[in-house]
């Protein structure tokens, strides 16, 4: 039994570089997303008659936009690309696990670590672009300078938690099905797989929301000051 799709090697290229199942299935998911969105957005319409695909995509995009707006209380357009692609990639790679022979790339620690590192770097990028280098760095000493090491450790540990949470959930789902196939192969694996679909979607949602919360916490200080000034202006 394999603990991760990293160890299933399809093509050995050179030395430590090889083509394993994680990379192959990541490429498959990427190709599916790119080709699907290209086919749907090829002829967009603004009239009364919309194609099915456009309606579906509009529902997805507006839902993500609404969620971002509710969490951050800011304009969602700035974060839509990053958070939306995180959510869609994780959701699709988890949902495709009902296809036989497919191994979700999110069930490998290297994929989830890569996604978590993206979030780790996105937080300072969005934070600095919103409130400048000074304002962003001032957050680390916010309650008092004693909290500086704890803030830095928190930044690192939440990245680790983000990676291990997604990996653990997806890996446990596929491993549970594999174990059940050996014990009760008739109906129970299907029930667990349905549960796995639900868990996969919830994990994608949680990953995106947590990334959004982290980014929002790095960009929100100025927002509060601004709204205070607005309130003063109104009075």
């Amino acid at each position, binding site marked *: *039994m394999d603990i991760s799709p990293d160890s299933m090697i399809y093509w050995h290229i050179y030395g430590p570089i090889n083509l394993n199942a994680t990379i192959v299935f990541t490429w498959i998911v990427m190709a599916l997303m790119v080709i699907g969105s290209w086919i749907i957005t090829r002829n967009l319409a603004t009239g009364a008659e919309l194609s099915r695909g456009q309606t579906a995509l509009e529902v997805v995009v507006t839902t993500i936009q609404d969620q971002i707006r509710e*969490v951050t209380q800011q304009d969602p357009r700035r974060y839509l690309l990053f958070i939306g692609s995180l959510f869609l990639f994780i959701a699709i790679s988890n949902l495709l696990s009902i296809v036989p022979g497919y191994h979700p790339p999110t069930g490998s620690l290297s994929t989830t670590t890569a996604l978590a590192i993206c979030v780790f770097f996105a937080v300072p990028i969005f934070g600095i672009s919103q409130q400048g280098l000074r304002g962003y760095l001032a957050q680390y000493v916010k309650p008092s300078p004693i909290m500086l090491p704890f803030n830095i450790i928190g930044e690192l540990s939440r990245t680790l938690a983000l990676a291990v*949470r997604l990996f653990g959930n997806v890996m*446990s789902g596929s491993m549970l099905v594999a174990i059940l196939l050996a014990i009760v192969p008739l109906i129970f694996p299907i029930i667990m797989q349905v549960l796995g679909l639900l868990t996969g979607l919830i994990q994608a949602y949680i990953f995106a929301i947590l990334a959004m919360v982290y980014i929002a916490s790095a960009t929100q200080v100025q927002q509060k000051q601004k709204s205070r000034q607005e309130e003063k202006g109104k009075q």
Partner: protein
Amino acid sequence: MEELSLIGMVSVITAGLTIAIGSLGPALGQGRAVSQALSSIAQQPDEANTITRTLFVGLAMIESTAIYCFVVAMILIFVNPFWNAVVDMVGQIGG
């Protein structure tokens, strides 16, 4: 061979204990969180959206402790470093 069976025995027992104890605390915590969220939804049904979202994020935070224990248990069973080291050593001596 003696060391190998000892390492295997201790790893399996520890993996079982890890997942048993490690799932106990998060289970209690999640139960409390869900019951609180349900009663607050019952009191304020208008705020159900916000409460549900916060509940999910909180549950994910609580659950990650159980997931850490699960990952440690899986490492102990499937990719145990001590087991591999001893197997390598025995292989070197034997070969």
